[in-house]
């Protein structure tokens, strides 16, 4: 009966990456580690809504809302650092509940496109708001000085905690309802489940994660501007999910690490970021629709000589 949560792997993995971040001293490596962590959290947030079968392009908007909330709380209100950080997630989640209540009645292309429009509309609000710094954005969003040497470890710890939490939710009975909605919403409704409520909950949880990613982005980048939160942010997150594989929560992690690291290497070579990501997405969907983790799993199954099904 007891579902295999693979907890030892998780604890070992988290301890390993956290330990590794302690060895980081080079500021460039530290910034790449931060970017990878935040990218992974955004990708996992995007995938969490994919569990109900919807592509959530409003993810970019909620990352932005988190970043601007944390930024304002730190620079304007001068609230404590950790409070500001969590506030980013909370505000993103609250906005997403209102937005989701209206838009989650729609599905598929309508939901996708409305999320896309929302992202662009929110961006215009930032760029026209004097308080939020208009087009040039906000500057000087610094963590307390004591945090500075530990930032990569801190960011990684927050991200790991969030991702682990999302993983536990996915594997819980709540997570099974999410998959059921993607598979066959009508059946889920006939056994007394409130589908709209579950969808909003899923959306709000994912948006909390996206908002937290935004908070972390603000405090690690120290500068934010409306241009950081265009729909391209969600497009990149989608690239991580697709290249890594969406079947399993490990997929977006693999995709984020691989693409961000390769991407910053490609940038170093003077390559063009967009061409690199675009080609990666196209090749991934055409040649390996189940992503890298999907390929690995198939390879393993073949090696073990049986077509073992991956029942959840």
């Amino acid at each position, binding site marked *: 009966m007891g579902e295999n949560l693979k907890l030892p792997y998780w604890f070992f993995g988290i301890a390993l990456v956290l330990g590794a971040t302690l060895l980081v001293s080079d500021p460039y490596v530290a910034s790449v580690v931060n970017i990878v962590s935040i990218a992974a959290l955004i990708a996992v947030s995007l995938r969490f809504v994919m569990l109900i079968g919807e592509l959530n392009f409003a993810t970019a908007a909620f990352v932005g809302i988190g970043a601007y909330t944390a930024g304002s709380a730190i620079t304007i209100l001068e609230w404590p650092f950790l409070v500001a950080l969590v506030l980013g997630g909370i505000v993103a989640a609250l906005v997403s509940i209102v937005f989701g209540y209206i838009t989650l009645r729609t599905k598929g292309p309508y939901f996708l496109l409305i999320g896309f429009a929302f992202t662009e509309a929110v961006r215009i609000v930032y760029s026209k708001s004097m308080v939020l710094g208009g087009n040039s954005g906000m500057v000087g969003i610094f963590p307390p000085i004591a945090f500075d040497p530990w930032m990569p470890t801190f960011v990684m710890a927050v991200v790991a905690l969030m991702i682990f939490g999302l993983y536990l939710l996915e594997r819980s009975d709540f997570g099974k309802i999410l998959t059921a909605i993607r598979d*066959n919403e009508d059946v889920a409704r006939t*056994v007394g489940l409130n589908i709209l409520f579950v969808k909003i909950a899923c959306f709000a949880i994912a948006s909390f994660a996206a908002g937290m990613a935004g908070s972390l982005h603000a405090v690690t980048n120290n500068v934010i501007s409306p241009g950081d939160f265009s729909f391209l942010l969600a497009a990149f997150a989608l690239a991580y999910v697709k290249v890594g594989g969406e079947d399993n929560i490990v997929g977006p992690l693999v995709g984020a690490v691989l693409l961000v690291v390769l991407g910053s290497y490609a940038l170093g070579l003077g390559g063009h970021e967009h061409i690199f990501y675009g080609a990666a997405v196209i090749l991934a969907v055409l040649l390996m629709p189940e992503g890298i983790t999907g390929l690995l799993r198939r390879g393993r199954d073949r090696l073990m000589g049986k077509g073992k099904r991956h029942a959840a």
Partner: protein
Amino acid sequence: MQHEGKEALLRTEGLTRRFGGLVAVSDVDFDILPGEILGLIGPNGAGKSTTFNLISGFYKPSAGKLTVFGENCTGKSPLTISRMGLVRTFQHGSLMPSMSVRDNILLGTIHGVRGAGKRRERAAETAEMLGLTPYLSEEAGTLPHGIQRLVSIGIAFAARPRLLCLDEPLTGLNQTEVANTLAVLEKIRDEHGCSVLLVEHNMKAVMKVCDRIVVLHHGQVLASGTPAEIRADKSVIEAYLGHRHAN
């Protein structure tokens, strides 16, 4: 309608549904009683599916009244009705194909049962009763058609409804599978006191398992009664059985 003092689980009065100019269901009255299997039959286009969708709240009636478990449910949402204890299946693909049989059945328990352990107990018990235990870890969408049909019933029955509404659960099943499913329905009625509404094409099976039958024709109730009464009803023979026998 009188039923020796038994209060109906479900009652429709003058239930009518129009689609544009077309009247799919017109002035339909019938009751479903506690502990019975009621067959709803009729030729294609007789309004069976529409009636089914009306009583489960998926369609709103154009006129008439729907009473479920003594409460007026006219125009109530499918969610409200299902939470009262009326659970339905769908004619096609009434399961979650990418999930395991275990998780499919588990889904039916989530609303009604508190605690992950208790849910798993209920799901295991339901699977056992339907003979699905050997398939628990299989992905539902990959199983043979007959097993998938049982899984659909399993999901619905795991919610332990007071009234289970099945939309053509026997379509495409072989004789053994039909007999097996009918036995399951009788078990559901006899051991759990759950009423069953059975919308079916398979006349032999309906005659065998149902306590009472309602015949729809051109969106109206043509006749209702015990299988023996229906078999003897002239208008039914003319409209439906005769037509069948002629084939």
